[in-house]
């Protein structure tokens, strides 16, 4: 049987992978992809619980999250493009405007 626990575990694993990606990868776009992964993991959790409680609440929230993610990516990519125009690179290690 595929229980709630399985879904939650999968979600947790996906979330951890996303966190690792954000912390350890140097390419900004890969970091954004990891953020997406984290959001999707959260979505999975919501839907699992929604199915568990037997109502549509979980799926509704997932809709919101998807829309939010899209907006966030749009803004984020705009910032990346601006930084790329300044620095010529998307390596996150090179962005040190706030050092010190």
């Amino acid at each position, binding site marked *: 049987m595929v229980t709630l626990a399985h879904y939650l575990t999968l979600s947790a694993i996906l979330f951890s992978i996303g*966190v690792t990606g*954000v912390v350890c990868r140097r390419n900004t776009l890969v970091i954004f992809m990891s953020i997406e992964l984290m959001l999707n993991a959260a979505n999975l959790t919501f839907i699992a619980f929604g199915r568990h409680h037997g109502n549509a609440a979980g799926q509704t929230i997932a809709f919101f999250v998807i829309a939010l993610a899209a907006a966030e990516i749009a803004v984020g990519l705009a910032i990346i493009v601006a930084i790329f125009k300044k620095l010529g690179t998307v390596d996150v*290690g090179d*962005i*040190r405007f706030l*050092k*010190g």
Partner: protein
Amino acid sequence: MENLLFGISVGSLAALIPALPLIGALLNGLIALLCRSGKRDVPKSLVSVIGVTLPVLAFAVACYLFSLAKDPATGFTTQPLWNWISIGDFSASVSFKVDRLSLLMTLVVTGVGSLIHLYSVGYMAHDKGFARYFTYLNLFLFAMLVLILGANLPLLFVGWEGVGICSYLLIGFWFEDPEKAAAGKKAFLVNRIGDLGFLLGMFLIYSTLSAKGLQAPGGLLSFEVLEQYKGDLFLVATPICLLLFVGAMGKSAQIPLYVWLPDAMAGPTPVSALIHAATMVTAGVYMIARMHFLYALSPIAMQVVATVGMSTAFFAALIALTQSDIKKVLAYSTVSQLGYMFFAVGCGAFSAGIFHLMTHAFFKACLFLGSGSVIHALGGEQNIWKMGGLRKRMPITFLTFAASVLAISGIFPFAGFFSKDAILWQGFATGHVVLWAIGFATSGLTAFYMFRLLAAVFLGKPRDEHLYQHAHESPPTMTIPLILLGLLGAVGGWIGFPEALKGSDRFFHWFAPIFAYEEFFAKLEARGHGLELVLTLMTLIWVVHLGLIANVLYSQKIGRMGALAEKFAPVHRLLSNKFYVDEIYNFLFVKPILLVSEKVLWKFADQKVVDSLMVEGTAETVGLLGRTFAMLQTGMIQTYVLLFAVGAIVFIGYFVL
């Protein structure tokens, strides 16, 4: 008791006396401020009028007050002008003690003071600090009068400190010369050491009396209260008297705190006359006379006072024998005569001490003013070996100087004879025979060095023709005070004509009610007039003899004196270098203190501890902490994300676990 005469109470008159010179000081001070640094020309006539008439007015008021208040002898304390200090149990008010002692002192101070103010008009006429000078001089007179008239010890101490400060300002009057400024500083510092003793004495009195739970409306340190409670002070009388005497040692230049007085000759000569001959240095003697009831309780303290006094008298006379600066001779002479006064009060002869104080004020002031006249005439020369034969060019100065020399040597019938005779006789009669013998010897020395001075300056042949041609008699503003003081030095002693010489000894009897002299009278009467006459005659012959020898030696055989000095060179060097006391003090006290100040306090404590360790250290530490925390701000997003994630895990973990 408040007498109302012409609607002015006696208390207000007493308050008026110090107030008049104070007004003079304030007005002249204002003028000095407005004219400073040559902004405007100093209005010399205005300053002179303010500076001289106010002390003269004070003298007039003092005379009037004298006529009103000389009976009863013990006088009274005026109503307080205002309540000065009131802290818990300790209180002191500003009120004045008007009795025969303070009245006499006031007359002397304002009288001689006014004459010196008048003299200064002529002497300082070409000085650009004219207004400043008169400000300080009037301020000094104010402080001295507060000292004399104060009815309690704290107020006396205010005057005490005030004259100290004015002395500093006036000695260092020409402060652009570093030596003169240093002399002023030395006077103040040495005085301060004495003041410490004085303060400790006051504290001891107060703590003893208040520990016994005594109360008094005018404050526990007022003289009337102290005299009333003197029995309670019996056990601590000796320490108190000795501590107060330390103060007197500083103010009145006794061993070991006399070293400032010869240096103080750096100030203008009228200042030396006023402060260091007639008034300030006598404050110590006055203080002991004021506290006579306490000293009478402590024979040990009295003996110490008498011994120190006579030792100082002898010591200073020895030094005066070899000095070549006209003012230094007079300075050491002052120290010596003050020693006589302390000897007198130390023997219980309080009125004799005050008598000598008065006559000394007359003749010493005259001597100093006379020397000022000579210095002024010779364009600033003070070395007696460059003078000589001035009697023809400066007759008035010569005559008054000679009269004062006769007075100080104690030659009948001049003033010094009576006062010195009173001191020596009363000292002998109370049993101080050894000290009397030293006093006898010292009076001979005094006659010798004074006649030496007279002869070297005025008699014989002039040793510097150029200076001699330059010499001229001084203007009337300077000669009138000289004449008046010379006359006082001649006849001023007659009010103390001793009974042994068929006089009425009015001075002694006048003060007798204050000093409560029963035991003392008895001792003197027991000795009898015969012995007194013998001793007096002996002393007179001795001083006349030595005076004549000195006169002849220094007016006619002056070359031989030079040879004599070379023959006894080591002794001569010892004396003319003032027994190297200044050098000894320098080695024992001044250098170690300067060394400690520089090496320990400055280099180490200030530079290393405060500056490096504490101030810069704090700054360095703050910087270090700052740099440490700044390491968190790498600017790399991933660091921040990591910290964020770790924080989130910890937070959630806390709630889960």
